[in-house]
């Protein structure tokens, strides 16, 4: 192996149970300002976001956002269109800055490391923090297999056997291997919509990221393909930190451990998912999850 892709991983041996005590269990990391919704009781923190503000030109999309995203758990971000949830997600792997005229302030730490630090390579951040988009986007000119291994080749993995081994592992993790193992040479775009989306997940997993960001990963899929993606999310959270943006509240309720509700670019409430959907603390959250908004 020519390059070490297993960049800093989170501790894996023991998964201490996540304790539901909002406002407590904060002592691990000093906070600048206490805010009930800012805190999430977390066993290990993947992202520590502090005072994040984002702009597109003159327009501010995210305001003073501070929250912690737990490692090896699923955190869902919900909120009406334009509330800044996708923008926030794209800040987590430095994709926000790819938009012309965009800027941000504040700090985001990934396992303690400032991902916007002066010496940090944005490409490396994006390798550690993979992303899956709403519309599946396999590379159209590539085969199923090449779609998965392309990231490895770009990262300098020259040994073909190693690449194939990792491709199989990634396809298995994405629960796609059995369906495509006999036609790895066919174009990636020949797969069904749900398979294409799982192919994109496999592609993201092949480079062994620590975090997987998912922006509406199932909104264009039928219920069966959606169920497969949701099952997959449950499998993947054993090894990965997952942040999912979704418009589908039932989906957030079904597959996430924590839910953050965003409104007008601000974090309104952030708590265990079961709390948010049975007894939210905030009136706006209540109105949103019960569909009274408007």
């Amino acid at each position, binding site marked *: 192996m020519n390059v070490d892709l297993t960049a800093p991983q989170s501790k894996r041996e023991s998964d201490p149970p996540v304790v539901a005590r909002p406002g407590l269990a904060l002592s691990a990391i000093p906070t600048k300002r206490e805010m009930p919704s800012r805190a999430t009781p977390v066993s290990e923190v993947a992202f520590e976001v502090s005072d994040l503000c984002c702009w597109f030109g003159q327009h501010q999309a995210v305001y003073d956002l501070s929250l912690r995203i737990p490692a090896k758990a699923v955190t869902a971000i919900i909120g009406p269109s334009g509330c800044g949830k996708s923008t926030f997600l794209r800040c987590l792997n430095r994709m926000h800055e790819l938009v012309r005229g965009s800027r941000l302030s504040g700090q985001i730490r990934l396992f303690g490391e400032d991902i916007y630090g002066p010496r940090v390579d944005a490409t490396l951040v994006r390798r550690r923090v993979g992303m899956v988009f709403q519309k599946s986007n396999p590379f159209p000119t590539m085969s199923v297999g090449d779609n998965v291994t392309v990231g490895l080749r770009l990262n300098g993995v020259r040994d073909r056997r190693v690449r194939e081994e990792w491709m199989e592992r990634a396809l298995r993790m994405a629960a796609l291997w059995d369906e495509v193992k006999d036609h790895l040479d066919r174009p990636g775009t020949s797969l069904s919509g749900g398979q294409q989306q799982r192919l994109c997940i496999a592609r993201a997993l092949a480079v062994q990221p620590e975090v997987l960001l998912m922006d509406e990963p199932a909104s264009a899929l039928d219920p069966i393909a959606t169920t497969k993606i949701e099952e997959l999310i449950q499998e993947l959270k054993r090894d990965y930190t997952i942040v999912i943006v979704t418009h589908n509240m039932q989906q957030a309720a079904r597959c996430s451990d924590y839910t953050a509700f965003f409104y007008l670019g601000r974090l309104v409430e952030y708590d265990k998912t079961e709390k948010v959907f049975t*007894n939210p603390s905030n009136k706006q*959250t209540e109105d949103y*999850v*019960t*569909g*009274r908004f408007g």
Partner: protein
Amino acid sequence: MERHFDQELGGLKEHLLRMAGFAEQSVAQALKALVQRDNVLANKVDDDDGILDQLEIEIDDRCIKLLALRQPTATDLRFITMAMKICSELERIGDQAVNIAHRAEELNKEPLLKPLVDIPRMAEHAQGMIHDALDAFVYAKPDVARAVINRDTKVDLLNRQLHRELTSFMIEDPHTITRCLNLMSIAHNLERIADHATNIAEDIVYLYEGRDIRHQNG
């Protein structure tokens, strides 16, 4: 924003209040049948119990459909699940009223043992508890519901006091045993009614505060 769903929830609430009205009425009529030695009224309580049973089935059915079709969350979810629990408590209150009516019919076969004092007092407390629990429900007042819960002890005390008194009657004169046992049974039914009212009150605190306060005193 008023949702179509709100109308369905409104319909559910209306049904639940109707059922509550019937349950309260059954208890009141059973007591009246006892105090006024009225067998016709006692019979009516028995007959009317079918209405409560029917309402229970209907309310449960509505709740299950709403859960399946609306996938409720937060207050909506708490309202529907508590409606199911409250309706089952109301149905049991109705059953207790029927038990009281049956015992009243038995008692009416013999002369009055002694003027009824403690049983009407117990009944007044139990009925007050049902009434206030339902007020707490209608006017969204969890504090009123909490106060109901505290009153349960009083009914328990009265029940125990009555047991002691009736036991002494039976020791003195075995001829009173049948009547004493019937009265004891009625006291026990009233004590159970107060327990159901307490359960309803606890459900209402959960409904409005999202806090489960059951089983906290050992």
